[in-house]
């Protein structure tokens, strides 16, 4: 392991590391725009410039992101020379940047903003007009580009070349008139990972159309969660309005809605990326909800419905349970320990690939579109759903099962979260809470367990599955 010095302090580096990697790992911060730990080195922003003292008492400067560590090297990250260069480079970057932070979605989480306060902090020195470029250029149906804010770090270009593999972004023209543009074949529009470029953009040039002008980021809270879109189980942050910033003037739904979803870095699962389906979790979680328990389509109070379900279970001779593959590890364990021995249990696939959806690739997307199928199968077996002769009760847990497949004459207890026609056809319908309203864990296809936290409170008329199973198995009232 080579040892070298940063600001006269000894630092250990792994063989093959650059000064940037070793410095960040050792807690010495070096600013960067174009460098990204998961992308190749471009070395074009030049903000990571550092000074190196040579053995003859002189110094030389170069960028840390492309500087291999040499044994005994003496690097200075905040010398007078480095400070001066950083300032100059920030002034250059800001030269044609509109500095419209007041209306920029990135404000509050923008590297340029942070570095300006940290390393420059001065008024612009140029009084010449700024270069004008395209505003609101539609790169795809999901992303707009503000070319004036763009600092041409080329992270987005490298992302489509190296991660998503669509090679769909490039730089047109040259000099200070360079423009990021999408290829004309529309490959960027069909890139299922395109929205990652919004996160990796160090400034507010690449903007999500879904999130455009929706909220300032400091009004939002990021709750750790898991994308249920496939068995990869990508770790995500769900951003929603902070409770202290709740506005009564807002539509109450806006105070309790998913404003955006971003990846939460987990090298064991998804790295720093997620696919576009994960960005659109609102499309899954904000469907109309089933909020009332029902007996054969007639709304009733929850305890009454639980009593009815309990009676059906008690009188059944050959009951079958279809277990949800969207249930958390805790819920599956609760079902196993309370009710499973009364039922013949089968794991049900709640979601199947939608038309036009990418089923599988070698980046992140996996073919099974349920987040916890592995854990469910581990507890309840992988046998395909089959109703034994004489099945007189079916407990259906979760969506995705057509009632036309039910055995003739069997009663149905249906546990679901969303408003669906089947709800009214069940003998007993029990509404369940959803992932954003509770905490739990999923086990992904590789066996990696991740956890999710509640973002919003649940309605009193809706049950959490764990206490519900306890209530069905015993005679206790639901908590």
């Amino acid at each position: 392991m080579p040892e070298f010095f940063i600001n006269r302090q000894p630092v250990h580096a792994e063989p093959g590391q650059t000064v940037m990697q070793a410095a960040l790992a050792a807690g010495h911060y070096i600013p960067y725009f174009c460098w990204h730990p998961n992308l190749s080195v471009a070395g074009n922003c030049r903000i990571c410039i550092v000074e190196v003292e040579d053995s003859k008492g002189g110094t030389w400067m170069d960028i840390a992101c492309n500087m291999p560590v040499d044994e005994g090297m003496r690097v200075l990250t905040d010398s007078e020379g480095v400070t001066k260069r950083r300032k100059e480079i920030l002034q250059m970057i800001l030269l044609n940047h509109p500095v419209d932070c007041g209306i920029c979605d990135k404000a509050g989480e923008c590297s340029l903003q942070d570095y300006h306060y940290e390393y420059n902090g001065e008024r612009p020195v140029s009084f010449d007009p700024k270069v004008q470029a395209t505003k609101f250029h539609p790169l795809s149906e999901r992303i707009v580009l503000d070319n004036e804010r763009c600092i041409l770090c080329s992270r987005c270009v490298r992302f489509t070349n190296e991660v998503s593999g669509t090679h769909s972004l490039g730089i047109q023209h040259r000099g200070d008139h360079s423009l990021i543009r999408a290829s004309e074949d529309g490959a960027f529009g069909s890139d299922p990972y395109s929205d990652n470029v919004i996160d990796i953009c160090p400034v507010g040039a690449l903007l999500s159309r879904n999130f455009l002008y929706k909220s300032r980021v400091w009004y939002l809270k990021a709750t750790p969660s898991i994308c249920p879109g496939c068995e990869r189980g990508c770790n995500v942050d769900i951003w929603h309005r902070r409770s202290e910033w709740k506005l009564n003037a807002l539509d109450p739904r806006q105070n309790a809605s998913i404003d955006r979803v971003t990846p939460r870095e987990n090298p064991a699962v998804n790295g720093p990326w997620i696919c576009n389906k994960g960005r659109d979790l609102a499309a899954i979680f904000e469907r109309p909800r089933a909020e009332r328990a029902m007996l054969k389509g007639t709304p009733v109070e929850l305890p009454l419905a639980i009593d009815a379900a309990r009676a059906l279970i008690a009188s059944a001779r050959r009951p079958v349970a279809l277990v949800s593959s969207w249930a958390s590890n805790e819920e599956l364990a609760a079902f196993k320990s309370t009710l499973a021995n009364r039922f013949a249990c089968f794991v049900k696939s709640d979601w199947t690939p939608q038309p036009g959806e990418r089923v599988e690739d070698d980046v992140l997307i996996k073919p099974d579109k349920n987040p916890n199928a592995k854990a469910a199968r581990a507890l309840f077996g992988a046998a395909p759903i089959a109703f034994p002769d004489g099945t007189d009760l079916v407990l259906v847990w979760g969506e995705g099962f057509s009632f036309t497949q039910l055995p003739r004459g069997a009663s149905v207890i249906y546990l679901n979260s969303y408003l669906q026609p089947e709800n009214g056809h069940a003998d007993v319908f029990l509404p369940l809470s959803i992932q954003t309203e509770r905490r739990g864990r999923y086990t992904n296809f590789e066996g990696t367990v991740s956890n999710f936290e509640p973002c919003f409170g649940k309605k009193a008329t809706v049950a959490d599955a764990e206490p519900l199973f306890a209530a069905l198995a015993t005679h206790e009232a639901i908590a």
Partner: protein
Amino acid sequence: MPGRQLLMNFPVTATSHTLADYRARGGYATLKRVLKTMKPEDVTKEVTASGLLGHGGAAFPVGRKWAVIKLNDGQPHFLCCNADEGEPGTFKDRWILENAPHLLLESMLIASYALQVRNAFVYMRGEFDLPNRRLQAAIEEAYDAGYFGASIPGTDFICDIFLYRGAGSYVCGEASGLLTSIEGKKGYPRNRPPRLTVRGLYQKPTVVNNVETLANITGIIRDGAEAFRKVGLPKSPGTQLVSISGHVVRPGVYEVEHGYPLMKLLNEDCGGMLGGRALKALIPGGISTKVLTGADCAELTYDHATFDKAGSSLGSGGMIAIADGTCMVRLLQVMLRFWHHESCGQCTPCREGMGWMHRIIDRIVAGQGRMEDIERLVAISDANDGTTICGMGDAAGYATVGFIAKFRDEFEYFIQHKRSRCGGVLEVARPAEVAHA
């Protein structure tokens, strides 16, 4: 002619560029001798011993560049001839490509043998028409004659050559930008390390040499390093093709032996300044080299050491003579417009700095300059010094600083009086034009 000739040593006729004429001058005999009697490392040793310096502008010792290539290391090596002659004022490679294409090809074959290159490339400037046709024809002749594409009888050496035409970008003349362009990407220069001799074209060890540099190889191997060193000076052996433009009576390409007196070159070989004017300034080797005043030039001899001492360099040999009465502010404006136009836009200081300097000088020329603009130009140049990926940002900065250091009073005059002290003149009428008028 200014001194002894190594390249322009044959009469240019209508057929002197063809294979038949080249063979009649002894062409391709050196190649055959090299293949039969020399080992690759001997060729490199001979080139190192000759002390040949690169003619592209940086004057890097050719032998040292070649020595980095490890022979028999199990990976392909590439040789690229940089024929993207785009430095303003420079048109000397064009002479070789038009008149001695086979000399270049023979040299490239010898270099390919020395560096164990199977595929060699020529990156040709997009605007070149005749040079392109001449070189293409020469390549076809050489293929037909069996020098390329098949093993040369009695040896197992095979080499193929690819002529690649650029699209006219200045930065594609920078070695790594050139390679990126050959790879089919946007011609962005690359960060070092790694050096191109370690990971160059297609990430393999690559030598990029200028046309004139390569053209010297055949002569060095034919006559030996000793003979080559006898021409020129010990520290600057050989000659330099100098393309002289500007306000001289006889502009053109001259082969100048290192050590030749500069004023003799301008006054005798080039016929002196137009209209008998005094030499106001000299850009010695393409606009990226620092400008010299007429007084600076008086005692100079044409070689690396004296030009370095004078604070400039020989650069690419693209010499621009500037007569008295020329407006240096407007000249710098032309240069900055060029750099702004040609900055690739990859790295921040050059992308933003070139445009900024161009806008400032435009404003000065429009009569809206402020005194602080001069310091701003110097500061922007300084911010480009050593902070950019390739040398273009540095070069533009050096040149700008050079102009301001030598002709500061003209800039101040322009800003104060909102007009040029020299009437904004860039052109000096040629005698013939005077006669027409």
